[in-house]
């Protein structure tokens, strides 16, 4: 019997030949690997997991058969998880094992490739946000928002309270994560009302106060509305010594007002809209902020430095903020992050270049407007519900019960969001735009 692939049992990824194993045991001075386990008898496991080993071919077939049970629906879905076409180049290059199978860059001298790619990612986010500091990834938009709130609270120790204000329209996952992260810091969440889908400035003005450590607003909102009063929101926050945190995404940032220019102190949101594609909600959280908050930033930062020959080189930096050094006083507990997704996002941004990126963002406005208008023409539908500019997605009012319509649409091959009894939400991007005609036709049948 030979080793490795030829083994009849055992791990196919353990390369030991019988001869090598014997030599190694001999060197260690034991009879068997088994005898190296220093586990008391009373906690020894002598059962089975009942998981059968499967060979590679059969396993691929069985998982493919499992996935084939997913119905092939054309998705018009968004709400925080957006799909744009990911070029083949991104898959090809990001799958290179030097990227995919490397670890965090603790030895920068042999990790310059990934470090530079992450430095470039940070730089792209700096350009898109106008803020000078961007970390090289959070898990997703929800955890980035939560970390922003914690950062705000650390900066505002003197505040009379620990309150974060968020829009009433907030994606459920973001709200849920925020609640969990804020609980340990004894912080509280207040939500401010929306007016026709955008921030109700008067109401917000009434709510914000000295106990407010952060005001969070989104553009586009979870319902696709482009916020028109970002500067005013920022002013309200700043007048109360609160931080202004803006949520957006990497495509919208290419077109909409630059966060820095509307006073944003922190930008969070999703960057996975480029580079990742639809992946059941897997994400990449943006985190960008002002220079003065640098030492409070959560997560990894890559910086430029020089090597012993004075050549430019990159390295993880400001690690004293992090858990492996600062432990319970760290700025965050984050360790493993989303570096590989950040690499992919940077590749995708670079592949688009500035003009195609702006085009993509512009199309998100026009395509949504056009689709809404076409749905609005259908008897029994009203769209967009909010008289606002939209980005990618919008809410549709249905005279018939919305869940039934969504169900009928699924029967015709389309997935849309159901918000409540009479509201659906529809999201259009470059990956489903060519199915818009068919969606409209389906809506005509079922509305």
């Amino acid at each position, binding site marked *: 019997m030979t080793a490795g692939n030829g083994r009849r049992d*055992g*791990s*196919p990824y*353990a390369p030991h030949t019988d001869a090598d194993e014997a*030599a*190694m045991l001999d*060197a*260690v001075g034991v009879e068997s*690997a088994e005898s190296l386990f220093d586990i008391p008898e009373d*906690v020894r*496991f002598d059962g089975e*997991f009942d*998981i*059968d*080993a499967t060979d590679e071919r059969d*396993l691929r077939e069985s*998982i*493919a058969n499992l996935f084939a049970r*997913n119905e092939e629906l054309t998705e018009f879905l968004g709400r925080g998880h957006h799909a744009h076409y990911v070029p083949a180049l991104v898959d090809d290059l990001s799958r290179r094992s030097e*990227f*995919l199978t*490397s*670890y965090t860059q603790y030895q920068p*001298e042999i990790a*310059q490739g*990934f470090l530079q790619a*992450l430095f470039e990612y940070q730089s*792209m986010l700096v*350009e*898109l946000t106008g803020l000078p500091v*961007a970390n090289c*990834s959070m898990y997703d938009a929800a*955890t980035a928002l939560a970390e922003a709130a914690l950062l705000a609270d650390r900066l505002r120790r003197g505040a009379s309270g620990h309150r974060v204000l968020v829009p009433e329209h907030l994606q459920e996952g973001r*709200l849920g994560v925020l609640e969990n992260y804020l609980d340990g810091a004894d912080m509280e969440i207040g939500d401010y009302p929306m007016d026709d889908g955008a921030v109700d400035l008067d109401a917000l003005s009434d709510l914000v106060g000295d106990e407010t450590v952060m005001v969070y607003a989104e553009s586009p909102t979870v319902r696709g509305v482009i916020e028109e009063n970002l500067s005013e929101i920022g002013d309200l926050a700043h007048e109360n010594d609160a931080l202004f945190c803006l949520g957006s995404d990497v495509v919208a940032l290419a*077109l909409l007002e630059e966060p820095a220019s509307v006073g944003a102190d922190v930008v969070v949101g999703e960057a996975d809209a480029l580079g990742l594609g639809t*992946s*059941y909600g*897997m*994400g990449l959280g943006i985190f960008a902020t002002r220079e003065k908050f640098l030492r409070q930033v959560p997560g990894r930062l890559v910086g430029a*430095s*020089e*090597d*012993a020959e004075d050549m*430019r080189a990159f*390295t993880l*930096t*400001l690690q004293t903020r992090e858990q492996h050094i600062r432990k319970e006083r*760290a700025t965050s*507990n984050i*360790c*493993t*992050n989303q570096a590989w997704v950040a690499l992919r996002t940077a590749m995708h941004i*670079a592949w688009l*270049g*500035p*003009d195609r990126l*702006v085009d993509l963002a512009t199309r998100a*406005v*026009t395509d949504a407007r056009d689709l809404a208008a076409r749905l609005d023409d259908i008897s029994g539908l009203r769209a967009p519900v909010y008289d606002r500019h939209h980005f990618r997605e919008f809410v549709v009012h249905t005279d018939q019960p919305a869940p039934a319509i*969504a169900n009928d649409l699924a029967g015709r091959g389309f997935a849309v969001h159901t918000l409540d009894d009479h509201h659906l939400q529809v999201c259009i991007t470059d990956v489903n735009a060519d199915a818009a005609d068919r969606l409209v036709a389906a809506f005509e049948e079922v509305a």
Partner: protein
Amino acid sequence: HYEPLLSEKDSTTVEVDADGVLPDDLTRDELTLPGLSEPQLARHYTRLSQMNYSVELGPYPLGSCTMKYNPSFTEDVAADPNAAVHPDRSDRTIQGTLGLLHGLQEQLAEIGGMDAVTLQPPAGAAGEFTGILIAKAYHEARGDDRSEIIIPASAHGTNFASAALAGYDVVELPSDEDGRVDIEALDAAISEETAALMLTNPNTLGLFERDILEISEMVHDAGGLLYYDGANFNALLGRARPGDMGFDIMHYNVHKTFATPHGGGGPGAGPVGVVDELADYLPSPMVRETAAGYELFEPESSIGKVHGFGGNWLVLVKAYAYIARLGDSGLSDASAKAVLNANYLASQLDLEVPYGPFHHEFAATSGDRDAADVAKRMLDYGVHPPTTKWPELVSQAMLTEPTEVEDKASLDDLAHAFNAAYADSDEALETAPTKTSARRIDQVSAARNPRLSWQALGDDE
């Protein structure tokens, strides 16, 4: 080996003119980014990749990081277009996705001896945080307000940070002279304020906590819970299960134990398993199987969300595939070979290993040589060095975990690198590395004068 920044290759400014699309005041004025073509990008990233070490190039023996080979086929499995679905799809239209998630919940529960598993935490630290939130919810539900988490000094930094994030005070526990939990100190630390004890087993010296049942009893008697940090679980597969040792909560680092790629720092995934009594507190949603198929549900007393959606899906798929590929015999063999490899490698080193018997990893000491310098010198021998200067219990520690995927020749090469670097002159160590494309990088100036973007680089760069 030097590759210009993308911005040095091209910098294109596009005026954003959204006339007729949006009012001017809702758009930015311009956008400046590199405007390059596909051949240029292909070369840029191919060159960058060649400036990076990886586990497909050589051993990567970072202690507690479990850098094992990531099977290629799992990438293909995860890339199945049928699996690319949105999380807001209705359950009945994504039975394949839910079926896989359910399968992984079951696999992990069985392997860990747990009763229920959530897949939502997107990383190990997120798993710790989730687990501690569950403990907190459990105590609160019982009207039992507890304020402390006990953590051994040798634990991973994330344990401390996660406990703090959940609002707990951390009680740090010293090790005994054998490198394990000091039972007396533990006894002193445990109180009515003890919400949980977080343990890594085997610990970060690779030592099994032999008194685990006694520890479990002590914690439980005081009304606390026992949390298992799964970072070192690769040492025990098929031989001991946290659930059987008395742990109530554990997280799995699937990017360690179950071979999903680290991706230069992530994504990973940190599923959390719990015993029955805690299952109602798990995050929402979970997947269950019913007569009508798989469905999502919210556990009765769920702590809610720890990720915006369902966690790192692609990573979970790869973990499922790895576990199904190996099965019982493969998983058990993986641990045996991981432990054999660590012991064999240690036997070949001139460096002392103060604590034992260890399992899948060991903390050697470079004695009067600076461990970080020895590590830099090891780069010149073509291998990745181990984790250095941690855990602090061992002075000048070199925490080494070769994993099961190294063959004897590779371990011999690694031992040679250790021994040669350890024996090299002070000057060789201080100037190392010299054979890498980048020489030793100045960390101090990077932190003192942070330049975190190409915008921050002067024109002289």
